[in-house]
Protein backbone atom coordinates (compact mmCIF):
# COMPACT_ATOMS: atom_id res chain seq x y z
CA UNK A 1 0.00 0.00 0.00
CA UNK A 2 1.47 3.30 -1.03
CA UNK A 3 2.55 5.67 1.67
CA UNK A 4 0.82 8.56 -0.04
CA UNK A 5 -2.40 9.37 1.71
CA UNK A 6 -4.91 11.84 0.44
CA UNK A 7 -6.66 14.43 2.48
CA UNK A 8 -10.29 13.59 2.86
CA UNK A 9 -13.50 15.44 3.40
CA UNK A 10 -14.36 15.57 7.14
CA UNK A 11 -17.79 14.09 6.40
CA UNK A 12 -15.95 11.08 5.09
CA UNK A 13 -14.26 10.58 8.39
CA UNK A 14 -17.59 10.87 10.13
CA UNK A 15 -18.92 8.06 7.98
CA UNK A 16 -15.92 5.93 8.77
CA UNK A 17 -16.35 6.47 12.48
CA UNK A 18 -20.01 5.56 12.23
CA UNK A 19 -19.19 2.41 10.30
CA UNK A 20 -16.64 1.34 12.83
CA UNK A 21 -19.10 1.94 15.65
CA UNK A 22 -21.70 -0.13 13.90
CA UNK A 23 -19.33 -2.96 13.19
CA UNK A 24 -17.74 -3.15 16.59
CA UNK A 25 -20.49 -1.67 18.74
CA UNK A 26 -22.47 -4.80 19.58
CA UNK A 27 -19.32 -6.63 20.56
CA UNK A 28 -18.19 -3.80 22.80
CA UNK A 29 -21.67 -3.75 24.28
CA UNK A 30 -21.41 -7.41 25.13
CA UNK A 31 -18.00 -6.85 26.65
CA UNK A 32 -19.21 -4.01 28.83
CA UNK A 33 -22.34 -5.83 29.90
CA UNK A 34 -20.41 -8.90 30.92
CA UNK A 35 -18.96 -6.86 33.72
CA UNK A 36 -22.29 -5.58 35.00
CA UNK A 37 -24.67 -7.12 37.49
CA UNK A 38 -28.04 -8.23 36.12
CA UNK A 39 -29.80 -5.49 38.01
CA UNK A 40 -27.73 -2.86 36.27
CA UNK A 41 -28.30 -4.37 32.87
CA UNK A 42 -32.05 -4.60 33.32
CA UNK A 43 -32.44 -1.09 34.59
CA UNK A 44 -30.47 0.08 31.59
CA UNK A 45 -28.15 2.41 33.42
CA UNK A 46 -26.05 4.04 30.79
CA UNK A 47 -22.98 2.05 30.08
CA UNK A 48 -20.27 3.99 31.70
CA UNK A 49 -21.32 4.63 35.23
CA UNK A 50 -21.36 1.37 37.04
CA UNK A 51 -19.21 -0.71 39.30
CA UNK A 52 -17.55 -3.41 37.26
CA UNK A 53 -17.70 -6.88 38.69
CA UNK A 54 -16.23 -10.17 37.65
CA UNK A 55 -19.11 -12.07 39.21
CA UNK A 56 -20.46 -13.17 35.84
CA UNK A 57 -17.18 -14.67 34.81
CA UNK A 58 -16.90 -16.39 38.15
CA UNK A 59 -20.31 -17.95 37.67
CA UNK A 60 -19.40 -19.08 34.19
CA UNK A 61 -16.04 -20.53 35.10
CA UNK A 62 -17.12 -22.00 38.42
CA UNK A 63 -15.85 -25.46 37.72
CA UNK A 64 -12.29 -24.42 36.97
CA UNK A 65 -11.76 -21.74 39.56
CA UNK A 66 -9.66 -22.84 42.49
CA UNK A 67 -11.60 -20.86 45.06
CA UNK A 68 -15.11 -21.05 46.49
CA UNK A 69 -17.59 -18.64 45.01
CA UNK A 70 -19.83 -17.11 47.62
CA UNK A 71 -22.65 -15.83 45.49
CA UNK A 72 -23.35 -19.26 44.04
CA UNK A 73 -25.04 -22.13 45.83
CA UNK A 74 -23.97 -24.72 43.34
CA UNK A 75 -22.00 -24.77 40.15
CA UNK A 76 -24.37 -25.28 37.28
CA UNK A 77 -22.43 -23.93 34.33
CA UNK A 78 -19.64 -26.32 33.55
CA UNK A 79 -17.85 -23.92 31.30
CA UNK A 80 -14.35 -25.20 31.93
CA UNK A 81 -15.23 -28.65 30.69
CA UNK A 82 -17.06 -27.25 27.69
CA UNK A 83 -14.11 -25.05 26.84
CA UNK A 84 -11.81 -28.06 26.82
CA UNK A 85 -14.24 -30.01 24.65
CA UNK A 86 -14.52 -27.15 22.21
CA UNK A 87 -10.76 -26.80 22.10
CA UNK A 88 -10.11 -30.48 21.47
CA UNK A 89 -12.75 -30.73 18.80
CA UNK A 90 -11.73 -27.52 17.04
CA UNK A 91 -8.00 -28.21 17.07
CA UNK A 92 -8.22 -31.82 15.95
CA UNK A 93 -10.76 -31.00 13.25
CA UNK A 94 -8.57 -28.21 11.92
CA UNK A 95 -5.44 -30.31 11.89
CA UNK A 96 -7.11 -33.24 10.16
CA UNK A 97 -8.91 -31.07 7.63
CA UNK A 98 -5.72 -29.27 6.70
CA UNK A 99 -3.67 -32.39 6.20
CA UNK A 100 -6.30 -34.31 4.29
CA UNK A 101 -7.54 -31.30 2.36
CA UNK A 102 -4.10 -30.24 1.34
CA UNK A 103 -3.27 -33.62 -0.08
CA UNK A 104 -6.53 -33.77 -1.96
CA UNK A 105 -6.12 -30.25 -3.36
CA UNK A 106 -2.66 -31.09 -4.59
CA UNK A 107 -3.91 -34.20 -6.31
CA UNK A 108 -6.70 -32.28 -8.00
CA UNK A 109 -4.40 -29.58 -9.29
CA UNK A 110 -1.35 -31.48 -10.32
CA UNK A 111 -2.46 -34.84 -11.51
CA UNK A 112 -4.51 -35.56 -14.52
CA UNK A 113 -6.60 -38.56 -13.73
CA UNK A 114 -9.92 -40.04 -14.45
CA UNK A 115 -12.83 -38.25 -12.88
CA UNK A 116 -10.87 -35.18 -11.91
CA UNK A 117 -13.45 -32.70 -13.04
CA UNK A 118 -16.26 -34.55 -11.34
CA UNK A 119 -14.44 -34.49 -8.06
CA UNK A 120 -13.69 -30.83 -8.44
CA UNK A 121 -17.24 -29.96 -9.34
CA UNK A 122 -18.68 -32.09 -6.60
CA UNK A 123 -16.64 -30.38 -3.92
CA UNK A 124 -18.40 -27.22 -4.91
CA UNK A 125 -21.75 -28.97 -4.81
CA UNK A 126 -21.14 -30.31 -1.37
CA UNK A 127 -20.45 -26.84 -0.17
CA UNK A 128 -24.02 -25.85 -0.74
CA UNK A 129 -25.41 -28.38 1.73
CA UNK A 130 -26.74 -26.68 4.84
CA UNK A 131 -25.84 -28.31 8.15
CA UNK A 132 -29.54 -28.57 8.93
CA UNK A 133 -29.93 -30.96 6.04
CA UNK A 134 -27.15 -33.14 7.36
CA UNK A 135 -28.73 -33.09 10.77
CA UNK A 136 -31.40 -35.62 9.98
CA UNK A 137 -29.26 -38.45 8.63
CA UNK A 138 -26.31 -37.77 10.89
CA UNK A 139 -28.56 -37.89 13.91
CA UNK A 140 -29.89 -41.25 12.80
CA UNK A 141 -26.60 -42.73 11.62
CA UNK A 142 -24.36 -41.61 14.45
CA UNK A 143 -26.83 -42.98 16.98
CA UNK A 144 -27.94 -46.19 15.40
CA UNK A 145 -25.77 -47.38 12.58
CA UNK A 146 -22.19 -46.24 13.03
CA UNK A 147 -21.92 -48.41 16.08
CA UNK A 148 -19.71 -51.14 17.39
CA UNK A 149 -21.65 -53.58 19.43
CA UNK A 150 -20.58 -53.85 23.01
CA UNK A 151 -20.51 -57.58 22.60
CA UNK A 152 -17.71 -57.46 20.05
CA UNK A 153 -14.13 -57.74 21.27
CA UNK A 154 -13.35 -54.10 20.61
CA UNK A 155 -16.59 -52.89 22.07
CA UNK A 156 -16.29 -54.88 25.26
CA UNK A 157 -12.69 -53.81 25.72
CA UNK A 158 -13.64 -50.15 25.48
CA UNK A 159 -16.51 -50.61 27.86
CA UNK A 160 -14.28 -52.34 30.39
CA UNK A 161 -11.59 -49.72 30.14
CA UNK A 162 -13.63 -46.56 29.94
CA UNK A 163 -16.96 -47.44 31.41
CA UNK A 164 -20.19 -46.20 29.94
CA UNK A 165 -23.13 -48.26 28.86
CA UNK A 166 -24.70 -49.61 25.73
CA UNK A 167 -23.25 -50.05 22.27
CA UNK A 168 -20.32 -47.95 21.19
CA UNK A 169 -21.83 -45.39 18.88
CA UNK A 170 -20.32 -42.33 17.33
CA UNK A 171 -22.86 -40.07 18.94
CA UNK A 172 -21.71 -38.53 22.17
CA UNK A 173 -18.03 -38.93 21.39
CA UNK A 174 -15.51 -36.33 20.37
CA UNK A 175 -14.60 -38.37 17.30
CA UNK A 176 -18.17 -38.33 16.07
CA UNK A 177 -18.30 -34.57 16.03
CA UNK A 178 -14.79 -34.26 14.65
CA UNK A 179 -15.68 -36.59 11.80
CA UNK A 180 -18.62 -34.53 10.66
CA UNK A 181 -16.73 -31.26 11.01
CA UNK A 182 -13.83 -32.51 8.91
CA UNK A 183 -16.25 -33.75 6.27
CA UNK A 184 -18.13 -30.46 6.22
CA UNK A 185 -15.02 -28.34 5.93
CA UNK A 186 -13.07 -30.38 3.40
CA UNK A 187 -14.82 -28.95 0.32
CA UNK A 188 -14.10 -25.37 1.26
CA UNK A 189 -10.52 -26.06 2.31
CA UNK A 190 -9.82 -27.98 -0.86
CA UNK A 191 -11.24 -25.12 -2.87
CA UNK A 192 -9.10 -22.51 -1.14
CA UNK A 193 -5.93 -24.54 -1.26
CA UNK A 194 -6.43 -25.36 -4.92
CA UNK A 195 -6.14 -21.73 -5.88
CA UNK A 196 -2.95 -21.43 -3.87
CA UNK A 197 -1.34 -24.55 -5.23
CA UNK A 198 -2.11 -23.44 -8.74
CA UNK A 199 0.18 -20.50 -8.16
CA UNK A 200 3.19 -22.62 -7.25
CA UNK A 201 5.38 -22.69 -10.37
CA UNK A 202 5.65 -26.14 -11.90
CA UNK A 203 9.31 -25.59 -12.64
CA UNK A 204 10.16 -25.83 -8.95
CA UNK A 205 8.44 -29.15 -8.69
CA UNK A 206 9.99 -30.44 -11.84
CA UNK A 207 13.42 -29.36 -10.65
CA UNK A 208 12.93 -31.24 -7.45
CA UNK A 209 11.64 -34.28 -9.35
CA UNK A 210 14.70 -34.25 -11.54
CA UNK A 211 16.82 -34.18 -8.43
CA UNK A 212 15.26 -37.52 -7.63
CA UNK A 213 12.56 -36.56 -5.13
CA UNK A 214 9.48 -38.77 -4.98
CA UNK A 215 6.00 -37.23 -5.17
CA UNK A 216 5.54 -37.18 -1.40
CA UNK A 217 8.82 -35.38 -0.92
CA UNK A 218 7.93 -32.87 -3.58
CA UNK A 219 4.69 -32.25 -1.82
CA UNK A 220 6.06 -31.82 1.66
CA UNK A 221 9.32 -30.10 0.96
CA UNK A 222 8.51 -27.91 -2.01
CA UNK A 223 4.83 -27.21 -2.28
CA UNK A 224 3.72 -26.98 1.33
CA UNK A 225 6.15 -24.28 2.44
CA UNK A 226 5.09 -22.13 -0.49
CA UNK A 227 1.41 -22.16 0.31
CA UNK A 228 1.75 -21.21 3.95
CA UNK A 229 -0.56 -18.20 3.64
CA UNK A 230 -3.22 -20.43 2.14
CA UNK A 231 -2.76 -22.96 4.90
CA UNK A 232 -3.07 -20.23 7.48
CA UNK A 233 -6.27 -18.95 5.93
CA UNK A 234 -7.73 -22.45 5.66
CA UNK A 235 -6.76 -23.18 9.25
CA UNK A 236 -8.44 -20.07 10.53
CA UNK A 237 -11.63 -20.74 8.64
CA UNK A 238 -11.87 -24.35 9.71
CA UNK A 239 -11.15 -23.50 13.31
CA UNK A 240 -13.76 -20.79 13.22
CA UNK A 241 -16.43 -23.13 11.94
CA UNK A 242 -15.55 -25.91 14.35
CA UNK A 243 -15.38 -23.52 17.27
CA UNK A 244 -18.61 -21.68 16.54
CA UNK A 245 -20.84 -24.45 15.29
CA UNK A 246 -23.94 -25.26 17.25
CA UNK A 247 -26.50 -27.36 15.40
CA UNK A 248 -24.67 -30.59 14.72
CA UNK A 249 -22.75 -30.41 17.96
CA UNK A 250 -25.95 -30.17 19.95
CA UNK A 251 -27.44 -33.14 18.15
CA UNK A 252 -24.38 -35.29 18.55
CA UNK A 253 -23.11 -34.51 22.01
CA UNK A 254 -24.07 -35.86 25.37
CA UNK A 255 -23.38 -34.44 28.77
CA UNK A 256 -19.65 -35.12 28.64
CA UNK A 257 -18.93 -33.69 25.23
CA UNK A 258 -20.83 -30.44 25.33
CA UNK A 259 -19.16 -27.59 23.54
CA UNK A 260 -19.37 -23.95 24.48
CA UNK A 261 -22.05 -22.86 21.99
CA UNK A 262 -24.33 -25.59 23.35
CA UNK A 263 -23.77 -24.33 26.86
CA UNK A 264 -24.64 -20.80 25.83
CA UNK A 265 -27.88 -21.78 24.16
CA UNK A 266 -28.85 -24.06 27.02
CA UNK A 267 -28.29 -21.20 29.39
CA UNK A 268 -30.93 -19.05 27.77
CA UNK A 269 -33.57 -20.66 29.84
CA UNK A 270 -36.97 -19.07 29.91
CA UNK A 271 -37.14 -18.84 33.67
CA UNK A 272 -34.10 -16.98 34.68
CA UNK A 273 -32.55 -14.90 31.96
CA UNK A 274 -29.24 -14.02 33.55
CA UNK A 275 -28.03 -11.47 31.06
CA UNK A 276 -24.73 -10.86 32.79
CA UNK A 277 -23.67 -14.49 32.75
CA UNK A 278 -24.92 -14.91 29.19
CA UNK A 279 -22.84 -11.95 28.06
CA UNK A 280 -19.82 -13.33 29.90
CA UNK A 281 -20.10 -16.75 28.26
CA UNK A 282 -20.65 -15.11 24.89
CA UNK A 283 -17.54 -13.05 25.40
CA UNK A 284 -15.52 -16.12 26.35
CA UNK A 285 -16.66 -17.90 23.21
CA UNK A 286 -15.84 -14.92 21.05
CA UNK A 287 -12.31 -14.43 22.34
CA UNK A 288 -10.40 -16.87 20.09
CA UNK A 289 -12.05 -15.61 16.88
CA UNK A 290 -11.40 -12.03 17.96
CA UNK A 291 -7.76 -12.83 18.63
CA UNK A 292 -7.46 -14.47 15.23
CA UNK A 293 -9.01 -11.48 13.56
CA UNK A 294 -6.76 -9.00 15.24
CA UNK A 295 -3.57 -10.88 14.55
CA UNK A 296 -4.24 -12.64 11.30
CA UNK A 297 -6.62 -10.40 9.41
CA UNK A 298 -4.47 -10.42 6.34
CA UNK A 299 -4.58 -14.20 6.11
CA UNK A 300 -8.31 -14.20 6.57
CA UNK A 301 -8.80 -11.73 3.79
CA UNK A 302 -6.45 -13.63 1.52
CA UNK A 303 -8.44 -16.75 2.20
CA UNK A 304 -11.69 -15.08 1.41
CA UNK A 305 -10.54 -13.55 -1.79
CA UNK A 306 -8.75 -16.63 -3.06
CA UNK A 307 -10.64 -18.13 -5.88
CA UNK A 308 -13.29 -15.47 -5.96
CA UNK A 309 -11.05 -12.86 -7.44
CA UNK A 310 -8.96 -14.30 -10.19
CA UNK A 311 -5.85 -12.22 -9.72
Amino acid sequence: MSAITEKQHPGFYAIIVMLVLMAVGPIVLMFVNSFKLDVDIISGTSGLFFLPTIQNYETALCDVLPYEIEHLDFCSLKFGGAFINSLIIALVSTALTLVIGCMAAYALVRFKFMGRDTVSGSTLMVRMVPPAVLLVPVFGLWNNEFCISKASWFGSWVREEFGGRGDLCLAGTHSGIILIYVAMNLPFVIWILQSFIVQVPRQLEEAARMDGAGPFQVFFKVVLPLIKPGLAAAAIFTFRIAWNEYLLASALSDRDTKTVPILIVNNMSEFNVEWGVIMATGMLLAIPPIIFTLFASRQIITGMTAGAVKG
Partner: protein
Amino acid sequence: MSTATFNRLTPYIFLAPALIIMALALLYPLGYMVFGSFRDWDPSQSLGESTYVGFANYITLWSDPSFRESVGVTLKFAVSVVCIEMVLGVGLALLLDRKLRGMSILRTLFILPMMIAPVVVGLVWRYMYHPTVGIFNNSLKSVGLESVDWLGQHALVSIIIADVWQWTPFIFILSLAALQSLPRSALEAARIDGATGWQQIVHIKIPLMMPVLIVTGLLRLIDAFKVLEVILVMTEGGPGLSTEILALRISRTATEFRELGVAAAMSNYLLMILLLVTIIMLVYNRIQEYRAARAIRAIEEEL
Protein backbone atom coordinates in the same frame (compact mmCIF):
# COMPACT_ATOMS: atom_id res chain seq x y z
CA MET B 1 5.87 -51.77 -6.08
CA SER B 2 7.87 -50.11 -8.82
CA THR B 3 8.21 -46.35 -8.72
CA ALA B 4 6.24 -46.09 -11.93
CA THR B 5 3.18 -47.80 -10.45
CA PHE B 6 3.62 -45.85 -7.26
CA ASN B 7 3.71 -42.64 -9.20
CA ARG B 8 0.61 -43.55 -11.07
CA LEU B 9 -1.17 -44.38 -7.87
CA THR B 10 -0.01 -41.24 -6.10
CA PRO B 11 -2.97 -39.05 -6.99
CA TYR B 12 -5.30 -41.68 -5.63
CA ILE B 13 -3.30 -42.02 -2.46
CA PHE B 14 -3.38 -38.29 -2.00
CA LEU B 15 -7.03 -38.16 -2.69
CA ALA B 16 -8.06 -41.22 -0.73
CA PRO B 17 -8.44 -39.90 2.82
CA ALA B 18 -10.52 -36.96 1.65
CA LEU B 19 -12.72 -39.13 -0.51
CA ILE B 20 -13.24 -41.71 2.21
CA ILE B 21 -14.24 -39.15 4.79
CA MET B 22 -16.53 -37.27 2.48
CA ALA B 23 -18.11 -40.46 1.29
CA LEU B 24 -18.65 -41.73 4.80
CA ALA B 25 -19.78 -38.57 6.46
CA LEU B 26 -21.34 -36.59 3.65
CA LEU B 27 -22.40 -38.72 0.73
CA TYR B 28 -23.65 -41.70 2.68
CA PRO B 29 -25.71 -39.54 5.03
CA LEU B 30 -27.11 -37.62 2.09
CA GLY B 31 -28.05 -40.82 0.36
CA TYR B 32 -29.45 -42.16 3.60
CA MET B 33 -31.54 -39.08 3.89
CA VAL B 34 -32.91 -39.27 0.39
CA PHE B 35 -33.77 -42.88 1.10
CA GLY B 36 -35.23 -41.92 4.44
CA SER B 37 -37.49 -39.31 2.94
CA PHE B 38 -39.61 -42.11 1.53
CA ARG B 39 -40.16 -43.68 4.91
CA ASP B 40 -41.96 -43.02 8.14
CA TRP B 41 -38.99 -42.78 10.38
CA ASP B 42 -38.46 -42.15 14.07
CA PRO B 43 -35.16 -41.21 15.75
CA SER B 44 -35.04 -44.38 17.76
CA GLN B 45 -35.14 -46.62 14.71
CA SER B 46 -32.45 -47.34 12.24
CA LEU B 47 -33.60 -46.99 8.67
CA GLY B 48 -34.25 -50.65 8.21
CA GLU B 49 -36.83 -50.67 10.94
CA SER B 50 -38.95 -47.88 9.53
CA THR B 51 -41.94 -48.35 7.29
CA TYR B 52 -42.07 -47.45 3.62
CA VAL B 53 -44.54 -44.76 2.68
CA GLY B 54 -43.54 -43.76 -0.83
CA PHE B 55 -44.11 -40.14 -1.70
CA ALA B 56 -46.45 -39.53 1.23
CA ASN B 57 -44.04 -37.21 3.02
CA TYR B 58 -43.52 -35.08 -0.05
CA ILE B 59 -47.22 -34.79 -0.74
CA THR B 60 -48.04 -33.94 2.86
CA LEU B 61 -45.45 -31.20 2.82
CA TRP B 62 -46.58 -29.79 -0.49
CA SER B 63 -50.04 -29.18 0.91
CA ASP B 64 -48.89 -28.18 4.37
CA PRO B 65 -49.46 -24.45 4.87
CA SER B 66 -46.74 -24.24 7.50
CA PHE B 67 -44.23 -25.64 5.06
CA ARG B 68 -45.31 -23.21 2.38
CA GLU B 69 -45.04 -20.34 4.81
CA SER B 70 -41.59 -21.49 5.81
CA VAL B 71 -40.45 -21.60 2.18
CA GLY B 72 -41.85 -18.13 1.66
CA VAL B 73 -40.01 -16.80 4.68
CA THR B 74 -36.79 -18.45 3.55
CA LEU B 75 -36.96 -16.97 0.08
CA LYS B 76 -37.88 -13.55 1.39
CA PHE B 77 -35.04 -13.66 3.87
CA ALA B 78 -32.41 -14.93 1.45
CA VAL B 79 -33.24 -12.52 -1.35
CA SER B 80 -33.53 -9.46 0.93
CA VAL B 81 -30.35 -10.26 2.72
CA VAL B 82 -28.30 -10.78 -0.42
CA CYS B 83 -29.62 -7.67 -2.14
CA ILE B 84 -29.08 -5.41 0.83
CA GLU B 85 -25.64 -6.80 1.54
CA MET B 86 -24.54 -6.52 -2.07
CA VAL B 87 -25.65 -2.91 -2.34
CA LEU B 88 -24.11 -1.95 0.99
CA GLY B 89 -20.97 -3.98 0.51
CA VAL B 90 -20.21 -2.73 -2.96
CA GLY B 91 -21.16 0.80 -1.98
CA LEU B 92 -18.81 0.73 0.95
CA ALA B 93 -16.03 -0.71 -1.18
CA LEU B 94 -16.46 2.02 -3.75
CA LEU B 95 -16.49 4.60 -1.00
CA LEU B 96 -13.44 3.33 0.77
CA ASP B 97 -11.31 2.58 -2.25
CA ARG B 98 -8.78 5.21 -1.55
CA LYS B 99 -5.44 5.46 0.06
CA LEU B 100 -6.21 5.88 3.70
CA ARG B 101 -3.96 5.80 6.64
CA GLY B 102 -4.92 2.93 8.85
CA MET B 103 -6.81 1.11 6.11
CA SER B 104 -5.62 -2.23 7.36
CA ILE B 105 -6.88 -1.48 10.85
CA LEU B 106 -10.22 -0.54 9.39
CA ARG B 107 -10.39 -3.77 7.46
CA THR B 108 -9.52 -5.74 10.57
CA LEU B 109 -12.29 -4.10 12.51
CA PHE B 110 -14.77 -4.61 9.73
CA ILE B 111 -14.29 -8.33 9.52
CA LEU B 112 -14.92 -8.84 13.23
CA PRO B 113 -18.66 -9.39 12.83
CA MET B 114 -18.07 -12.29 10.46
CA MET B 115 -15.80 -14.14 12.82
CA ILE B 116 -18.08 -14.07 15.85
CA ALA B 117 -20.09 -17.21 16.46
CA PRO B 118 -23.63 -17.00 15.06
CA VAL B 119 -24.89 -18.07 18.47
CA VAL B 120 -23.22 -15.06 20.04
CA VAL B 121 -24.47 -12.77 17.29
CA GLY B 122 -28.00 -13.96 17.99
CA LEU B 123 -27.44 -13.42 21.68
CA VAL B 124 -26.21 -9.86 21.44
CA TRP B 125 -28.88 -8.82 18.99
CA ARG B 126 -31.57 -10.46 21.07
CA TYR B 127 -30.38 -8.35 23.95
CA MET B 128 -30.33 -5.21 21.85
CA TYR B 129 -33.81 -5.87 20.53
CA HIS B 130 -35.29 -6.70 23.92
CA PRO B 131 -38.51 -4.74 24.49
CA THR B 132 -37.62 -3.39 27.90
CA VAL B 133 -33.99 -4.10 28.56
CA GLY B 134 -32.58 -3.66 25.09
CA ILE B 135 -30.51 -0.76 24.01
CA PHE B 136 -32.55 0.14 20.95
CA ASN B 137 -35.75 0.68 22.80
CA ASN B 138 -33.98 2.38 25.67
CA SER B 139 -32.44 4.90 23.30
CA LEU B 140 -35.74 5.45 21.53
CA LYS B 141 -37.47 6.04 24.82
CA SER B 142 -34.82 8.43 26.01
CA VAL B 143 -35.37 10.66 22.99
CA GLY B 144 -39.07 10.50 23.53
CA LEU B 145 -40.00 8.16 20.70
CA GLU B 146 -42.11 5.07 21.03
CA SER B 147 -40.38 1.81 21.49
CA VAL B 148 -40.64 -0.74 18.73
CA ASP B 149 -41.65 -4.35 19.10
CA TRP B 150 -38.60 -5.60 17.24
CA LEU B 151 -38.82 -9.28 17.84
CA GLY B 152 -42.58 -9.38 17.81
CA GLN B 153 -44.15 -7.48 14.96
CA HIS B 154 -41.04 -6.83 12.95
CA ALA B 155 -39.23 -10.07 13.56
CA LEU B 156 -38.25 -10.75 9.96
CA VAL B 157 -36.86 -7.25 9.48
CA SER B 158 -34.95 -7.56 12.72
CA ILE B 159 -33.22 -10.76 11.76
CA ILE B 160 -32.45 -9.38 8.34
CA ILE B 161 -30.74 -6.45 10.01
CA ALA B 162 -28.73 -8.77 12.22
CA ASP B 163 -27.62 -10.83 9.23
CA VAL B 164 -26.73 -7.73 7.25
CA TRP B 165 -24.60 -6.63 10.18
CA GLN B 166 -22.78 -9.92 10.23
CA TRP B 167 -22.18 -10.50 6.53
CA THR B 168 -21.89 -7.17 4.75
CA PRO B 169 -18.18 -7.19 5.64
CA PHE B 170 -17.84 -10.34 3.53
CA ILE B 171 -19.17 -8.59 0.44
CA PHE B 172 -17.23 -5.48 1.31
CA ILE B 173 -13.88 -7.23 1.51
CA LEU B 174 -14.42 -9.13 -1.68
CA SER B 175 -15.59 -6.08 -3.60
CA LEU B 176 -12.69 -4.07 -2.30
CA ALA B 177 -10.26 -6.72 -3.40
CA ALA B 178 -11.92 -6.80 -6.80
CA LEU B 179 -11.80 -3.01 -7.09
CA GLN B 180 -8.18 -2.89 -6.17
CA SER B 181 -7.26 -5.45 -8.75
CA LEU B 182 -8.91 -3.53 -11.58
CA PRO B 183 -6.51 -2.42 -14.26
CA ARG B 184 -5.50 1.08 -13.42
CA SER B 185 -4.95 1.88 -17.04
CA ALA B 186 -8.65 1.77 -17.86
CA LEU B 187 -9.47 4.08 -14.96
CA GLU B 188 -6.70 6.47 -15.85
CA ALA B 189 -7.90 6.59 -19.43
CA ALA B 190 -11.41 7.39 -18.31
CA ARG B 191 -10.27 10.12 -15.99
CA ILE B 192 -8.16 11.72 -18.69
CA ASP B 193 -11.18 11.64 -20.94
CA GLY B 194 -13.01 13.72 -18.36
CA ALA B 195 -15.39 11.14 -16.87
CA THR B 196 -16.85 12.12 -13.53
CA GLY B 197 -16.48 9.88 -10.50
CA TRP B 198 -20.02 8.64 -10.87
CA GLN B 199 -19.60 7.83 -14.54
CA GLN B 200 -16.40 6.00 -13.74
CA ILE B 201 -18.23 3.87 -11.28
CA VAL B 202 -21.18 3.00 -13.42
CA HIS B 203 -19.47 2.49 -16.72
CA ILE B 204 -16.12 1.08 -15.79
CA LYS B 205 -15.73 -0.15 -12.27
CA ILE B 206 -18.94 -2.05 -11.87
CA PRO B 207 -18.90 -3.77 -15.24
CA LEU B 208 -15.32 -4.87 -14.65
CA MET B 209 -16.17 -6.13 -11.19
CA MET B 210 -19.26 -7.94 -12.39
CA PRO B 211 -17.82 -11.45 -12.56
CA VAL B 212 -16.58 -11.26 -9.00
CA LEU B 213 -19.76 -9.65 -7.81
CA ILE B 214 -21.93 -12.30 -9.32
CA VAL B 215 -19.91 -15.12 -7.86
CA THR B 216 -19.92 -13.39 -4.49
CA GLY B 217 -23.63 -12.81 -4.66
CA LEU B 218 -24.35 -16.40 -5.48
CA LEU B 219 -22.03 -17.62 -2.74
CA ARG B 220 -23.78 -15.39 -0.28
CA LEU B 221 -27.15 -16.63 -1.50
CA ILE B 222 -26.17 -20.22 -0.84
CA ASP B 223 -24.97 -19.28 2.61
CA ALA B 224 -28.15 -17.35 3.34
CA PHE B 225 -30.10 -20.58 3.21
CA LYS B 226 -27.86 -22.00 5.86
CA VAL B 227 -28.48 -19.32 8.47
CA LEU B 228 -30.01 -20.97 11.48
CA GLU B 229 -28.37 -20.34 14.81
CA VAL B 230 -28.86 -16.59 14.73
CA ILE B 231 -32.57 -16.99 14.14
CA LEU B 232 -32.87 -19.81 16.62
CA VAL B 233 -31.41 -17.75 19.41
CA MET B 234 -33.25 -14.56 18.54
CA THR B 235 -36.79 -15.66 17.83
CA GLU B 236 -36.90 -19.47 17.68
CA GLY B 237 -38.85 -19.08 14.48
CA GLY B 238 -41.56 -16.96 16.00
CA PRO B 239 -43.79 -15.17 16.32
CA GLY B 240 -46.00 -17.71 14.61
CA LEU B 241 -43.90 -18.95 11.76
CA SER B 242 -42.80 -15.54 10.60
CA THR B 243 -39.11 -16.20 10.94
CA GLU B 244 -39.04 -19.94 10.63
CA ILE B 245 -36.69 -20.44 7.75
CA LEU B 246 -36.54 -23.83 6.16
CA ALA B 247 -33.34 -24.92 7.88
CA LEU B 248 -34.89 -24.14 11.24
CA ARG B 249 -38.09 -25.94 10.35
CA ILE B 250 -36.14 -29.01 9.33
CA SER B 251 -34.27 -29.10 12.61
CA ARG B 252 -37.50 -28.65 14.56
CA THR B 253 -39.27 -31.37 12.64
CA ALA B 254 -36.40 -33.68 13.37
CA THR B 255 -35.72 -32.97 17.01
CA GLU B 256 -39.02 -31.65 18.38
CA PHE B 257 -41.64 -33.42 16.32
CA ARG B 258 -39.47 -36.47 15.82
CA GLU B 259 -40.58 -37.03 12.24
CA LEU B 260 -37.35 -37.79 10.49
CA GLY B 261 -39.00 -38.88 7.27
CA VAL B 262 -40.79 -35.57 6.85
CA ALA B 263 -37.64 -33.67 7.83
CA ALA B 264 -35.73 -35.61 5.21
CA ALA B 265 -38.30 -34.75 2.55
CA MET B 266 -38.07 -31.10 3.52
CA SER B 267 -34.30 -31.27 3.30
CA ASN B 268 -34.64 -32.58 -0.22
CA TYR B 269 -36.85 -29.70 -1.20
CA LEU B 270 -34.28 -27.30 0.20
CA LEU B 271 -31.47 -29.06 -1.58
CA MET B 272 -33.33 -28.80 -4.85
CA ILE B 273 -33.58 -25.04 -4.46
CA LEU B 274 -29.90 -24.83 -3.62
CA LEU B 275 -28.98 -27.11 -6.48
CA LEU B 276 -30.65 -24.69 -8.82
CA VAL B 277 -28.58 -21.82 -7.49
CA THR B 278 -25.36 -23.81 -7.62
CA ILE B 279 -25.98 -24.93 -11.15
CA ILE B 280 -26.54 -21.34 -12.16
CA MET B 281 -23.22 -20.52 -10.60
CA LEU B 282 -21.40 -23.35 -12.32
CA VAL B 283 -22.94 -22.47 -15.66
CA TYR B 284 -21.99 -18.85 -15.17
CA ASN B 285 -18.42 -19.86 -14.36
CA ARG B 286 -18.29 -21.98 -17.49
CA ILE B 287 -19.58 -19.10 -19.59
CA GLN B 288 -16.95 -16.83 -18.15
CA GLU B 289 -14.18 -19.28 -18.85
CA TYR B 290 -15.50 -19.79 -22.35
CA ARG B 291 -15.64 -16.08 -23.00
CA ALA B 292 -12.16 -15.54 -21.60
CA ALA B 293 -10.79 -18.36 -23.74
CA ARG B 294 -12.51 -16.91 -26.78
CA ALA B 295 -11.13 -13.43 -26.07
CA ILE B 296 -7.65 -14.83 -25.74
CA ARG B 297 -8.01 -16.74 -28.97
CA ALA B 298 -9.30 -13.61 -30.71
CA ILE B 299 -6.29 -11.65 -29.52
CA GLU B 300 -3.96 -14.42 -30.62
CA GLU B 301 -5.52 -14.48 -34.04
CA GLU B 302 -5.03 -10.78 -34.42
CA LEU B 303 -1.37 -11.04 -33.70
